[in-house]
C-alpha cells in the first residue's frame, strides 16, 4: 500500500462520511417538495447528529454489552463498506480487499448486530422489529446476490472495481440483463434501507415500523452513530448501484487525491439525481402490509434471476 493510495482511501472515506447525511437530507427535502410540504433544511441530519452527540446517553439497567457495542459495530461496518465500494476511484487499496459477496456479508453482520441489540432488552417493540428485519433480510439478500452475479457475469469478476472498469472500457452497448438487474437492485435497496414500500422512515411510533422499532431504546451518542450509519447505508447502496449501472465518471487507473476530488462533483450530481428518483418512488407508492413484503422481494429476486437467464441466452 503506497502512501498516496492510503491518502486517497482516507479521502474517499471522509467524503463518504460527510456526504451521507447530506444525501439523506436531500432525499427528505425532495420528498417534502413533492408532497407539498415545507421542506426541512438540507443540513438537518447533521444538526440531528450533533445534537445527539451533545446529549447524555441513557442505557437500560439490564442491557448487556451487545447493546452497548452495537452502534460502534454497525457504524464501523458501514464505514468499512464505504471504503470498499468504488464510489470515487477504482484503484484504491481497500477496493481489492473484499469483493461484492464479502460486502453483502458485511451488511449482514450489521443487520445481525442491530437485531441482537434490539432483542437484548426484551421489549416488545424491539423483538418485533428484529424479527421483521431478519424476515426482510433473508428475502432481500438472495436477490441482492443475484443482482451482483448478473453484473459479474458481464465482467467476469465479483470485484466491484473490476466490474466498473470492464463496463467503462467497453463500447456503449445496451445490456437488457442489466436493465432487469437495475430494477431488482432498486427494489432491494428500498427494502434494505427501510424505505417506503416496505418500511416508513418518517414514523417513530407505529405498529408497522421495522427499523425504528429496533432502535427505540437508544439515545444520545449511540443513536447518533446509528442514524449516521443508516445514512451511510443509503449512501453505500446508492454508490453500489451507481458503480454497477452508471459507472461513468469514476476515477480509474491512478487514484491520487486530485483524481478523487475530480470525481466528487460527478458523484454528487449522480447522487442528487438518484435521491430525487428515490423521493419520487417514495411519494408515488404506498407502504405495503408486511405480509406483502415476500411478494415484493420475491419479484426482485425473480427479476434478478431473469436478468441472469437473459444474459446467458442473449450473451448481453
Amino acid at each position: 500500500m503506497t502512501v498516496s493510495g492510503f491518502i486517497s482511501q482516507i479521502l474517499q472515506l471522509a467524503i463518504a462520511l460527510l456526504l451521507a447525511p447530506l444525501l439523506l437530507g436531500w432525499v427528505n427535502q425532495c420528498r417534502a417538495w413533492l408532497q407539498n410540504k415545507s421542506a426541512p433544511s438540507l443540513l438537518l441530519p447533521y444538526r440531528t447528529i450533533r445534537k445527539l452527540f451533545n446529549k447524555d446517553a441513557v442505557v437500560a439497567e439490564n442491557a448487556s454489552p451487545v447493546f452497548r457495542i452495537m452502534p460502534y459495530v454497525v457504524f464501523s461496518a458501514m464505514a468499512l463498506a464505504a471504503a470498499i465500494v468504488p464510489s470515487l476511484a477504482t484503484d484504491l487499496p481497500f477496493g481489492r480487499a473484499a469483493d461484492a459477496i464479502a460486502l453483502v456479508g458485511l451488511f449482514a453482520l450489521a443487520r445481525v448486530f442491530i437485531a441482537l441489540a434490539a432483542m437484548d432488552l426484551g421489549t416488545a417493540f424491539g423483538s418485533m422489529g428484529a424479527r421483521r428485519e431478519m424476515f426482510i433480510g433473508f428475502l432481500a439478500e438472495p436477490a441482492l446476490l443475484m443482482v451482483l452475479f448478473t453484473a459479474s457475469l458481464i465482467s467476469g469478476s465479483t470485484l466491484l472495481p473490476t466490474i466498473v472498469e470492464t463496463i467503462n472500457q467497453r463500447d456503449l452497448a445496451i445490456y437488457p440483463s442489466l436493465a432487469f438487474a437495475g430494477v431488482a437492485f432498486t427494489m432491494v435497496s428500498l427494502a434494505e434501507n427501510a424505505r417506503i414500500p416496505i418500511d416508513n422512515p418518517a414514523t417513530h411510533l407505529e405498529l408497522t415500523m421495522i427499523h425504528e422499532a429496533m432502535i427505540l431504546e437508544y439515545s444520545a451518542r449511540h443513536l447518533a452513530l446509528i442514524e449516521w450509519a443508516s445514512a451511510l447505508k443509503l449512501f453505500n447502496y446508492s454508490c453500489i448501484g451507481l458503480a454497477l449501472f452508471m459507472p461513468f465518471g469514476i476515477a480509474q487507473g491512478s487514484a491520487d487525491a486530485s483524481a478523487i476530488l475530480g470525481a466528487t462533483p460527478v458523484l454528487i450530481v449522480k447522487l442528487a439525481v438518484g435521491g430525487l428518483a428515490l423521493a419520487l418512488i417514495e411519494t408515488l407508492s404506498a407502504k405495503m402490509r408486511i405480509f406483502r413484503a415476500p411478494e415484493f422481494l420475491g419479484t426482485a429476486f425473480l427479476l434478478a434471476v431473469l436478468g441472469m437467464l437473459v444474459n446467458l441466452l442473449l450473451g448481453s
Partner: protein
Amino acid sequence: MTGIPLWAQLINLLAALLLLLAFAMLAQRRVLTLINLFAAQGFALACSTAIVAWATDQAHLYGSAALTLILKVALLPWLLHRLVRKLDVRWDVEGLLNIPTTMLVGIVLVVFAFNLAAPIEQLASTITRSTLGIAMASVMLAFLMMITRRKAIPQVIGFLAMENGLFFAATSATYGMPMVVELGIALDILVAMLILGVFFFQIREQFDSLDLKHLEKLKEGE
C-alpha cells in the same frame, strides 16, 4: 457484446422488455392495469417488428407492425376497457395459486423455454434467432396466466398475450409469416374477442359473476 449492431441490441432490449411485461401481467392483480400492460406488450412487439423490418428491408413486416399497433395497442385494449366498464368488473383478480408461487413456476417455465429454444436457434438463420427463447417463454407465461386465473377477462387477456408471444416467435425465427396468414390471425383474434365479449355477458347473466368455476357444474341447484 461489441460487434452487435445497434438495432440488434434494441431488439434484444425489446425482447427482454416483452418478457418483463409477461411477468408483470402474471403478477398483476387489477384488471385495468392488466389491460394496460397488455397494450404495452403490444407496443413493444410493434416496435421490435418495425426494427426488424427496417434492418432486413422486408416491406411486409412494416405491414404487420402497423397491424399490431392498430389491433393490439389501440383496438383490443379499447374493447377490453369498454367491456370492463360495461360489466362493471373492476375487482381484483384472484388466482388459483398465490402470486409468489406463480412467479416461481414462471421462472421454471422460462428456463424450460430457453432450453427448448436452444436447438431450434441452431437451425434458424435469422439474426434475431437468439430472441426465440424469449418468445417461447412469453407464450408459456401467457399460458400459465390462463391456467392460474379464475375469472373470464384475465383468461382472455392471457389468450391474447399468448398470440403476442407466437407473433414474436414468428418474427424472430423466420422474419414473420406471410401477410395472408398474419391478416387471418389478426381477424381471428378480433372475432374471438368480440365473441368472447358476448360470452361474458351471457355468463354473467346466467351466474351473476364472471367466475368460470360456475361453468364446471353440470346441474343446477347443487
